[in-house]
């Protein structure tokens, strides 16, 4: 038996929690941090014919905050998997929900993703500047709803354990 923050679980269950935590954390690291941080490099390597304007837009879409929040989510996800059912699970769920909300907010740039591209070749030596703004506010809200529910769940769990 393993005692985990006052909760006793079997060794097998503990091992399962650790493994699932590592798998989930690895997945989160890959999806929430590694791929966004290296997306431009991947596109260049695996899709060399990708239009240059699309590559130039990436830095505008994937800012450094996404990577920081994505990285911060990794240990929280691991801990959530490990400490599920313990006293810490409620506060961890709150933190996970808040970080997830922050991540979604960053991904959607607060609802409106905008970018400015300059000197795009148009042919015949002509260059153009492109300013693009994509309003995804409602889409962002759709993704934020589960994090709000997660926050409520965390509060409920915290109150229950208290």
């Amino acid at each position, binding site marked *: 038996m393993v005692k985990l923050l006052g909760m006793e679980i079997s060794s097998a269950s503990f091992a399962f929690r650790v493994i699932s935590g590592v798998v989930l954390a690895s997945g989160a690291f890959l999806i929430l941090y590694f791929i966004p941080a290296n997306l431009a490099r991947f596109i260049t390597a695996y899709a060399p014919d990708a239009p240059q304007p699309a590559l130039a837009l990436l830095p505008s879409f994937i800012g450094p905050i996404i990577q920081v929040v994505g990285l911060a989510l990794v240990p929280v996800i691991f801990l959530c998997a490990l400490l599920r059912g313990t006293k810490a699970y409620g506060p961890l769920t709150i933190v996970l929900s808040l970080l997830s909300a922050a991540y979604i907010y960053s991904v959607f740039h607060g609802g409106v993703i905008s970018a400015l591209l300059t000197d795009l070749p148009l042919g015949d030596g002509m*260059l153009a*500047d492109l*300013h693009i703004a*994509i*309003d995804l506010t409602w*889409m962002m809200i759709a993704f934020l709803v*589960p994090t709000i529910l997660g926050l*409520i*769940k965390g509060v*409920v769990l915290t109150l229950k354990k208290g």
Partner: protein
Amino acid sequence: MKRSIALALINSLIVVFVIAAFGIAFLVAANAFGAAYSIRTGEPLFNSSGPVVQFSVPVSLSNPGPLAVSDISLTATVRGMDGETIAVAPSAPVSVPPGAEDMRFEIPLIINLSEIPGQSLSLLFQESGNLSVEVDAEAGIAPFVRITASVSAEVPWSPPVQDLQIGDPAFLGYNSTHLSASIPVSFRNTGEFVVDGSMNVTILDAETGAPAGAGALGIYAPPQSDFSGDLVFAVRLPENATALLFEDMTFRYNFTLGFDLYGIEVFSETEPVDIEWGALVSNPYLGSPAVSPHNLTFASLAFPIGFENANDFVTLDGSVTVALVINDQTVAESSPVYIHAPPDSSVSTEVVLQVPKWALVASGNLVVTLSTGLWSASLEVPYNHG
């Protein structure tokens, strides 16, 4: 127990909303990419009717997704080289319903030359440079996505009238009231428009402002062609024939040269023009006569006569006669002597007069009359042979 139900409900809702959010994202993305990849633009169409020039870009679009692509609109703004707005062309919003295939519409850009400020039009007409084109586009998949894009670019402009050359007037002819001349005009149409218009000249007397002449030249120059022509005009001459024949004068005019394109004046320039008019009969002289007997009662007087034609344009063709007037009575008159004096040339001839012998010792006047087809004038010279 209640909390466990609440937690189970929250967990279920989280799962539902996560699936819903990803489902919406997938649906919208598939819809947007499907519509975006179906966009086909045709060859831009050009049409000009009078002062209205219209470009239109045919666009075809399909919407394979389940959501309508709504409020697709474009606004194109063109600014001239001086930054003035030449045209603003908003297109009517178009919506493509779900499942629509190959929906076709046109995005027109209409430039009304008559609405362009004169200075901008004049620049556009003659100067090459860059036009600033800005296209604002908007489209959405309501309510999840709304995209606005703005593209701005500098587009090189080739003027429809390049290297406009206006040459010096060339004299064509004259009559008793007008001089006619022509101005060579040439230019190259480097633009994409047909230059269909006219060039005209309005001539005003510089001192009185009264109209003094006019002329026009029709112009038609297809794109990428050279145009040359002669703008023929007539200038009114002063009515004083004596002055035209015997005096050097300067005619001062204001020439206003205008270029109309599709009935709109796109170029106008006023220049003062002085026309130097040299006397057709300059430095006239009437020499001493050579006297010889003609018969018992008459004697012949042969007068050497000459002058310079100081005019640069007009050839003087006419005749000269000499009459002897004594006490207001014409006592003798010569036969007309034909004269031909090209511009800037000298003429000398002899006029023979048969006079009564008594007149050789009388005093009077010699009246020298110059007649051309257009003008006639006389000079009186004292005669005192005795």
